[in-house]
């Protein structure tokens, strides 16, 4: 196991992430230009989609059905489990609990990719349709947690108002449909889903001429992206103290729980060891691309320090460095290998 951990730590991805953290701790001025960061994330999401779409064109619906069902089940379960733990065990307020739960109910695309790379470097390539599962898992978790948050904070506000009717004027609440539209047409969705459909339509013959761009460069581009993520995580490290031990415990134990459940469900649905590991990682991961703006817009009372620190500075490095190898061990056990 330590062997696998060490190999994983010496992968370009983990190393670049650590370099980013160290640079930030040294107070270096290093930072990727904003447009480069945006360009890399567009490239990465579109490339995952394209590749996944091309692979999907080789897949029969039958293989795909059970994993898809299981993924949607995970997307409905994880935000609720996360909310309940946050509210009842970690004692967060309604808005904060719902805000954090939206992140853990969704999925981190970079963690997804890192697990894909890891399993195939370990000799267990994952199924071609995994990116499709990624898109299935991305949205429901955010919506469910935000709905919980919106309903319960409204009820709380009403209760307060009845006690003290002379309170200040309330801000106009935002219609849920607007939020759903924003999440469904967010950049990451369009690129992932659009890429999937394009890949599916262009097949291998169309993909071949663009492969040097979208596939051969992928890992290098991802390395640069992780450097930036390390910088972002590094600048959040001091918030760990503000966040408190409850959040740190949540950010490491919740992924282990979600990851184990994901691994069992994946194996049950007939995924390979690689696919099971990747599904477990998705369940365990916390979104930090799609979830933060959605939460910020809909639940402004939730403190961003909590959800960003948990997703970016606790759970992301935990999964990247320790989590993924653990989920693979569980997946091997669950798949009976």
């Amino acid at each position, binding site marked *: 196991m330590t062997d696998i951990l060490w190999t994983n730590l010496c992968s370009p991805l983990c190393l670049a992430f650590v370099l980013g953290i160290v640079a930030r701790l040294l107070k270096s001025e290093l930072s990727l230009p904003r447009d480069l960061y945006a360009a890399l994330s567009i490239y990465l999401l579109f490339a995952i989609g394209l590749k996944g779409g091309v692979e999907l064109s080789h897949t029969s619906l039958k293989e795909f059905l059970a994993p898809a069902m299981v993924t949607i089940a995970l997307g409905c379960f994880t935000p609720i489990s996360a909310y309940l733990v946050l509210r009842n065990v970690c004692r967060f307020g309604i808005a904060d609990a719902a805000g954090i739960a939206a992140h853990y109910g969704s999925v981190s695309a970079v963690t997804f990719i890192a697990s894909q790379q890891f399993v195939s470097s370990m000799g267990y390539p994952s199924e071609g349709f995994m990116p499709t599962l990624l898109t299935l898992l991305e949205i429901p978790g955010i919506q469910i947690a935000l709905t919980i948050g919106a309903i319960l904070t409204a009820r709380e506000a009403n209760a307060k108002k009845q006690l003290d009717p002379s309170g200040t*004027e309330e*801000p*106009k609440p935002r219609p849920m449909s607007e939020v759903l539209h924003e999440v469904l047409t967010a950049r990451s969705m369009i690129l992932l889903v659009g890429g999937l459909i394009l890949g599916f339509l262009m097949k291998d013959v169309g993909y071949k001429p663009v492969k040097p761009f979208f596939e051969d460069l992928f890992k290098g581009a991802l390395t640069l992206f992780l450097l930036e993520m390390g*910088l*972002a995580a590094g*600048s*959040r490290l001091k918030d760990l103290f503000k966040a408190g031990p409850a959040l740190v415990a949540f950010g490491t134990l919740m992924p282990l729980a979600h990851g184990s459940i994901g691994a069992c469900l994946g194996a049950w649905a007939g995924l390979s060891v690689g696919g099971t590991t990747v599904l477990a990682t998705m369940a365990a991961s916390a979104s*930090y*691309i799609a979830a*933060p*703006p959605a939460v*910020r*817009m809909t639940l*402004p*009372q939730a403190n*961003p*320090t909590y959800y*960003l620190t948990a997703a*970016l500075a606790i759970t992301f490095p935990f999964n990247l460095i320790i989590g993924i190898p653990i989920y693979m061990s569980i997946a091997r056990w669950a798949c009976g290998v």
Partner: protein
Amino acid sequence: METHPVILLTIVAEHVLRERLLTEIQQAGVRGYTVYEVEGEGSRHRRVSEVLGSNVKIETIVSAEIADKLLSILKRDYFPDYAAIAYTTSIQVIRGEKYV
């Protein structure tokens, strides 16, 4: 050159509000606006720009009434929960009728 006094309303707010604020000012009847990306720190001291983008600055030349209306909306719907500030400056323009 004859000039007319009008009001320049400036809003600086966190980036997720960009589209909402632009809709808001257009609904209030402004005749135009200028918008650009900025960074900043304020009372909310949130260093969240890595993921949530930095701030947005919106400038719009308006009549005193519209400025007032927009300030009330900002006070009610945005100042309590979001990182946002607003201020007005007296300026002079040559085509006064263009902005009211």
